[in-house]
């Protein structure tokens, strides 16, 4: 059987054309797996191509025309990429909506894109669209994948099941057997195929228009640096609406024959990952921090002997990682110690997590703290940073094996040119740069500078040629004395503590640095239970005096590692977790610093007024069903020791 190996010629194809080519070359090779009703079910490339064919013809029967938008609102299911490819086969454009979106966000994107068809996974997602159907004049059909609860909906012509869509396609296919191939053949690599909404830490999201070439060129560039073998396994659990998951879950498999595995549900994703043991994995920092917390909790519950062994072996791992990350060979003594540590701890630990077969693990979307980095590298996991924007197809910079530095985001991929502007902004030029923002041409013009895309991040290239990102250009802060610091750097250091889930740092044009901190309800809850401290709600736990002392000591430990200008002077423990539903975080977990500052402005004011050591707060919570609850409490302002104000700084801010 002829195998289709990735080569430059494939970059001249559209995604559907590449699908057909791969299906012809290896029709029986596994393309994807889905865990359904407890067992993994496989679909071969031939079967995928067939479903895409019928879905596309079904869409054609519904009147979808080139240029029309087809939206997908679902968790990670195989029907998502299949629907995308089906739409693209007709010259239509797909747009992804995060499954966790609330109704208003869904309405905004469907209205903005003028989508004619939406694939909504199940009743819950369907209802979000139905609630606003009157405000979506373009919407012709809502297609659902999970029939549960949908019986009564079918009386309305607006709804159609995925099976129904495929049946329509089969009927059309019998009448005109060549129609699908004809449509696919008309596609051009520079056609816009997908709209990807940017994460929008500020303002309303807008969608970047991406072409087939955008996807495939960046997927191919990645393969050239980190080769992926046909049949390698990948587990898709990050939202498919995210651009990096699009490249990993759609472009890379089509190019290389990598197998995409879909877990049973969000809750079982980590368990299912264990069953697959992927060769490649992608995670946002929250995922890696979550795994770290899990390990920490388990070790905390272990016998003291085990804990001691764990600490000693992790230390060996860390030392070995220093060598390995730089591509240097280990000295003999350390090598032997590391082999033992690998056999005794790292191998079984990675096996427990499902990480054993990983050739490479990537982290992207936001900065992962250097301490977390060293933790995983110490375990023997090849964790690397990727960097890019939605507008550059998600990844333009990747750390090379043997050149891993927790402070950098890697070198440009082949075909990517980087430049640093006078103001210190990182500029990128490559084949992955999108074709603009949908319906916002003028806004895109502002993002371009002589053909380079402006990232909005401040950074520099270090001596080794690796890119170092300091922070968002808009977020790099300067204290009142003019000292520069990166709030994200401090936040990541704080978040390395297992007790701190989220931190938001402030201090721009202010006399000192402060933070609003979310405690981690799981780890702190357990800590409190172990000490017999009773608590009721998260708000109660966060204001508990013992918990305050705990976090104070964590913050003091962080302060030791910070430069004088960066040290936290005062902070509060927020009474509620920052949430994407409340627009305090983006859907990919990034903090919206400005928004949070506004929302909790009375707390922010108290942080900078030494007269206040607590803030009286009256807040309203909205539950998911719309019920509201009122909360009134005093939020304590805490002052860690070791912070210095009015101290002049001799060295610059740490990158």
């Amino acid at each position, binding site marked *: 059987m002829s195998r289709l190996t990735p080569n430059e010629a494939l970059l001249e194809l559209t995604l559907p054309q590449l699908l057909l080519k791969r299906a012809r070359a290896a029709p029986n090779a596994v393309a994807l797996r889905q865990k359904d009703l407890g067992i993994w079910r496989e679909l071969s490339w031939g079967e995928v191509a067939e479903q895409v064919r019928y879905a596309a013809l079904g869409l054609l029967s519904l009147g979808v025309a080139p240029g029309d938008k087809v939206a997908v609102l679902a968790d990670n299911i195989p029907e998502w990429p299949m629907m995308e490819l089906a739409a693209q086969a007709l010259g239509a454009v797909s747009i992804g909506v995060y499954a966790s979106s609330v109704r208003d966000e869904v309405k905004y994107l469907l209205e903005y894109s003028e989508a004619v068809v939406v694939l909504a996974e199940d009743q819950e997602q369907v209802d979000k669209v139905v609630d606003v159907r009157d405000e979506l004049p373009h919407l012709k059909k809502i297609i659902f994948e999970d029939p*549960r*609860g949908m019986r009564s909906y079918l009386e309305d012509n607006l709804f159609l099941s995925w099976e129904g869509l495929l049946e329509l396609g089969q009927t059309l296919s019998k009448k005109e057997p060549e129609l699908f191939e004809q449509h696919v053949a008309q596609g051009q690599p520079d056609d816009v195929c997908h709209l990807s909404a940017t994460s929008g830490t500020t303002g309303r999201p807008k969608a970047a228009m991406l072409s087939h070439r955008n996807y495939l060129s960046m997927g191919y560039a990645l393969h050239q640096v980190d080769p992926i073998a046909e049949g390698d396994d990948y587990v898709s659990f990050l939202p498919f609406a995210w651009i990096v998951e699009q490249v990993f879950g759609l472009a890379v498999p089509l190019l290389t024959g990598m197998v995409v595995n879909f877990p049973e*549900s969000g809750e079982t994703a980590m368990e299912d990952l264990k069953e697959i043991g992927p060769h490649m994995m992608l995670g946002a920092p929250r995922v890696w921090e979550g795994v770290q917390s899990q390990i920490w909790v388990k070790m905390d519950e272990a016998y003291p002997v085990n804990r001691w062994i764990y600490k000693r072996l992790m230390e060996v791992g860390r030392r070995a990682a220093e060598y390995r990350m730089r591509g240097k060979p280990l000295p003999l003594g350390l090598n032997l110690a590391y082999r033992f540590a690998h056999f005794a701890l790292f191998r079984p630990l990675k096996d427990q997590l499902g990480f054993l077969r990983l050739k490479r693990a990537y982290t992207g979307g936001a900065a992962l703290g250097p301490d977390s980095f060293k933790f995983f590298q110490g375990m023997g996991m090849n964790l690397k940073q990727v960097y890019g924007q939605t507008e550059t197809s998600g990844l333009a910079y990747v750390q090379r094996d043997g050149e891993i530095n927790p402070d950098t985001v890697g070198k440009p991929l082949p075909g990517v040119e980087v430049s640093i502007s006078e103001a210190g902004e990182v500029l990128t030029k490559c084949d992955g740069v999108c074709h603009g923002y949908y319906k916002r041409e003028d806004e895109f013009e502002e993002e371009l500078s002589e053909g380079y895309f402006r990232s909005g991040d401040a950074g520099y290239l270090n001596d080794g040629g690796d890119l170092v990102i300091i922070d968002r250009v808009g977020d790099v802060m300067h204290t009142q004395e003019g000292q520069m610091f990166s709030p994200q750097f401090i936040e990541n250091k704080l978040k390395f503590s297992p007790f701190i889930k989220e931190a938001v740092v402030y201090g721009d044009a202010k006399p000192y640095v402060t933070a609003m901190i979310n405690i981690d309800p799981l780890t702190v809850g357990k800590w409190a239970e172990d000490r017999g401290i009773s608590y009721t709600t998260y708000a109660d736990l966060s204001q508990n005096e013992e918990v305050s002392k705990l976090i104070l000591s964590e913050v003091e430990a962080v302060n030791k590692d910070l430069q004088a200008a960066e040290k936290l002077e005062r902070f509060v423990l927020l009474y509620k977790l920052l949430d994407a539903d409340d627009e305090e975080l983006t859907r990919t977990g990034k903090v919206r610093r400005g928004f949070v500052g506004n929302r909790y402005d009375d707390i922010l004011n108290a942080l900078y007024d030494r007269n206040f050591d607590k803030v009286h707060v009256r807040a309203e919570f909205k539950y998911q069903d719309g019920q509201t609850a009122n909360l009134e409490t005093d939020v304590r302002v805490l002052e860690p020791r070791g912070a210095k104000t009015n101290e002049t700084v001799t060295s610059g801010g740490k990158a």
Partner: protein
Amino acid sequence: MATSAQLDVKNLSLSFGGLNALSNVSLSVEPGLITSVIGPNGAGKTSLLNCISGFYRATEGSIQFEGKELVGASPHQISKLGVARAFQNIELFSGLSVLDNLMLARHTHLDYSFWQSLVFYGRTQRQEIDNRAFVEGIIDFMELEPYRKAVVGELAYGIRKRVEMARALTLDPKLLLLDEPMAGMNLGEKEDIVRFIMDIKAERDTTIVLIEHDLGVVMDISDHVYVLDFGQRIAGGPPQEVAKDPAVIEAYVGDEVTV
């Protein structure tokens, strides 16, 4: 069949020596609907369910399920007729996993012999696979995937109650008896159980008899409500009527109160 009641209780009485647990109780349950039985503690609700399930034998009266007489029948005969029960005090094997508990509930659908059971082949294999597929469908329905392999004894109370309900559903019953499925749950957990009950009614066409103390839930989801007090039926009808019935209000509160 559509108009006549699926479960018909007529003049049912149950006494333990001098104690009258049930006195002359009559009620009927329509197929595919949710019928609730409410009443203060000790009113005889669980005794009523025990009579239907066959654990107690009524001293007088009859219980007809789809035309067959249940009084005098044994519990396993009654369960074969299509009556399943989720118990108030969870009756699961705490040392087994969720999956094993549910597979066990399918034992009535296994008819291979002892000798055949020694080898996973042929009839044994087929039936085990069929039953596993069915059980997986229930797991999917009750959203128990993350707990499939977990040992029941280690699960949180709310999840165990869900498994208990799943166990009853695994029997694929025509009539499902739920004995206080929401006891001891907070608001979020109660809403989940209510959602499952509504889904069971909508998607599996199962008739549900519900014993529950949360009157808000009962009034919201029931098609029909019966009220017992001191072993006697004191009211019966659509929820709104029963809520206004003065005898009911007096039995619960002892006073005039707006519900």
